[in-house]
Every structure is written in C-alpha cells, then in structure tokens.
C-alpha cells in the first residue's frame, strides 16, 4: 500500500515509520536553524558586552509597542497552526483549512507591522551601517523575516493541498512538519523580542 504520507513514493514504506522519519528529519533541520541563529545571538552578547552604551542607545530607538504586538501576533499564529495540526490529526477538513488561513493571515500581519517598523527607520537613515547595534538588529530580524516568508510559502502549500482534501487522520505528517517549522519561527522571535527591544 503506497500511502501519500511517503514523501518520495520511491519504495514501499511503512507509513508510520515514514511519518516518524519525516518528523525526525524536521527536528534535525530545526537543530541546525537554532545553531544558525545561535551564532547571531553569540555575536549579540559579545557586542553588547563590549559596547553597552551603543546597545542601550540603539535599543531605545526601537518601538516596544510594535515589537510586543508582533510577539502576540506570532503567538496567535502559533496557536492557530497548532489548531491546524490538531484538525488534520482528527480529520476535520474545514477546521484545518480555516486554521491554515488564519495562520497565513497572522503571518501577513507580522510582515505589515515589520514594514511599519523598518520603513521609518530606513527613511531616517537608520540602516545596518549605522552602528553595531543596528547591524545586529537588521541581521537578526532580517534573517527571521526570511524565515517568516519561507514559513508562509510552506503554509500556503499546505493550504492548497488541504483544499484538495489531501490530509486526513492517516496522513497529516506534512501539516505537522509545517507546524514544527512555523513554531520555530515563533520561538526565535520569542528570544529576539526581549533581547533587542527590552534589555
């Protein structure tokens, strides 16, 4: 029996095993993502240690309200993504489609808020070259934004497939993997927000 849960359909595979492997692969990938951002976090701590005043000054230029708003937006999107996975696990088609769409909507909100943050900064001449704080700021939030965009494409794909009824109780691995990726994007922001905006 060739379950659609098997990623490449190259050979017959036990669907449960395929599902477990698929998920483990994603976890391993997420570990590399943590290290990618971890290098930047290490740079953040060292530069902050060397130039505390530059960081204090730079951080005071950031809008805590917008940063906090985006934190909540991502938390809600994580919740709706978890609900989407739950719906897929239970085979609830409508709820799955609805929650994927809500997640996409929140992701879009995040980008809009980010635009309102970056836009005025850049037009006031605050760029990655302004000082070491803003180098770190634009690099970390920029790389994070890239992850948001990748996550949105992933969720968009899931949505298109969910509309065709691809996911059900026996096959929800794809949704779960998309969820894992999206939650990591949330977790990274959970750290970026206090480090850049609050302290």
């Amino acid at each position: 029996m060739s379950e659609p849960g098997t990623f490449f359909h190259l050979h017959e595979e036990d669907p449960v095993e395929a599902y477990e492997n698929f998920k483990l692969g994603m976890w391993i990938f997420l570990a590399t993502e943590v290290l990618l951002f971890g290098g930047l976090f290490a740079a953040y701590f060292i530069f902050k240690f060397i130039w505390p005043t530059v960081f204090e000054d730079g951080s005071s230029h950031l809008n805590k309200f917008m940063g906090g708003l985006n934190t909540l937006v991502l938390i809600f999107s994580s919740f709706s993504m978890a609900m989407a996975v739950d719906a897929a696990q239970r085979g609830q088609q409508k709820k799955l489609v609805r929650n994927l769409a809500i997640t996409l909507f929140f992701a879009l909100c995040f980008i809009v808020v980010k635009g309102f943050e970056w836009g005025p900064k850049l037009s006031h001449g605050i760029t990655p070259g302004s000082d070491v704080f803003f180098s770190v700021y634009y690099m970390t939030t920029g790389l994070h934004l890239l992850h948001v965009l990748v996550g949105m494409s992933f969720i968009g794909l899931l949505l298109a497939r969910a509309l065709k009824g691809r996911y059900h109780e026996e096959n929800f691995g794809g949704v779960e993997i998309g969820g894992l990726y999206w939650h990591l994007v949330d977790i990274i922001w959970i750290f970026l927000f206090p480090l850049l905006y609050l302290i």
Partner: protein
Amino acid sequence: MSEHKMGHIQEFSIYFKVLLALIGLTIATVLVSLVDFGIFNTLVALLVAAIKASLVVLYFMHGKYEDRITWAFIYYPLILLATLVGALFLDYGFRDKGQFTVGPISFDAMHQSHDADSHGATDDHGATTHDSHNADSADTHTDAHGEPSIMDPATEAHAAETPAVDMWEGVHGDVEAGRAKAKVLCIACHLIDGEGNALPGAPPFAETANNTEKTPEFLRTWLKAPQSVKPGTLMPQLPLTDADIENLITYLHTYAE
C-alpha cells in the same frame, strides 16, 4: 508497527492554556523591562523567553510525546550553543586588559596597565605609542621612510602658514550632535567627557584639538577613511555622513584651548 499510532492527539484545553500562558508571559516580560534591575533584567528576560519557548516545544510542537532520539536533537544544539557563548565569555572575561584591541577597558584598569606598560615610550600623557610617534615627526621628517606618517606633508605645510584661528572659520557643525555621535561611535576607543575606553594608542581628543597641524581638512579626511591617511591604523573607518563629520570635528574643536 501498525498498532503504533501516528502522533498524539492533545486536548483542546491544553492548547488554550498554553496560549494564555504565552500571552501572560509576554505581558509580564514587557512590564519587568520597565523597571531597572540592572543585570537581572537580562536574566529575567532570558528566563521568561526560555519558559515560553519550552511551552511551545512541549505542547504546540508535541515535544512532550516525542521519543528520545528527537529529544537528543532538541538538546544537542542547545549544548553547542552554551559551549559557544560560554567559551566566548571566558575568552573576553579573562583577557589581559592591556592586550585588548577593542574592548571594555575601565578607566582605572587603563591607568594600572600604563604603569606596567612595556610597549612604546612610557610617558605621563597616557597615549604611549602615539605620543612617541608624534615626537618623531616633530623633530624630523625622516619617518616617511619608517612608520608611515599620519600627516601628509602637503597638509602640514599648509597648516604651518595658516594661523590656527582662521582655518576653523568655515566649520559650523552642531556641537551637541557631534558629541552624541561620538558617544555612540567613538567611545569604545576615545574617552568622551571622561567616559568610555582609552584605547592604547588612540590620542585623547584634547591632544588632537590642540595640535594646529590637525586642520579641519585633515580631520575630514581622517574620519572619512583613516586607512587612506595611515595604512594599518587601528582607527576604523566608521559609517559617517558628511554632516556627521562636520558635527564631529566641530565637537572636537571644543577641546581646543
């Protein structure tokens, strides 16, 4: 294998409680940041973020129901990260202060390291290497064959025939804007109002300001591209606009006596 179920179905109430906890913790961390607890602000912020991240991993990502091999891949990047950050801080924390190229040298530490200074000519002014270098170029111009001179001869000749007052006439930057910029960009190596670090070799601003050879024109070129004036200098090329440079040199001139 087929009796082994795929995934784990979690109660809705758990998801909902986690959502509420995440919102509550976000609000809490913002509120805590409004009060100044010094280093504890950082620790609290990191602790709260770690709790939030754990909730997401355990309940939204179903980490709670994952097997050991998955958990191995959750811990492994964290251990590597802790090693990286730990090693960096050991390095920075225990370096010989005098050896810092760029770093957090306290004012006191600077004086101590000068007493025990073994490189360059020791003197009372603090900036050892620079002072000895300036003394050379004041005596003769032969150092053109040795260490590259910070002054180009043309500027030097020009400075000699122009009285110090005149050459500052056309400089109308904003002193306060200059001071503010200096506090951000220069303070890591030059003392500003007695604050920051005095990097060995970086002359105090007062010394530059009272040296009539350091014309505004020279300072403009210097700030724009120190390497072009003195290849190999430790003074970095900083991201400055022309307006920043005017403000900075106006501010520097306030040190002139």
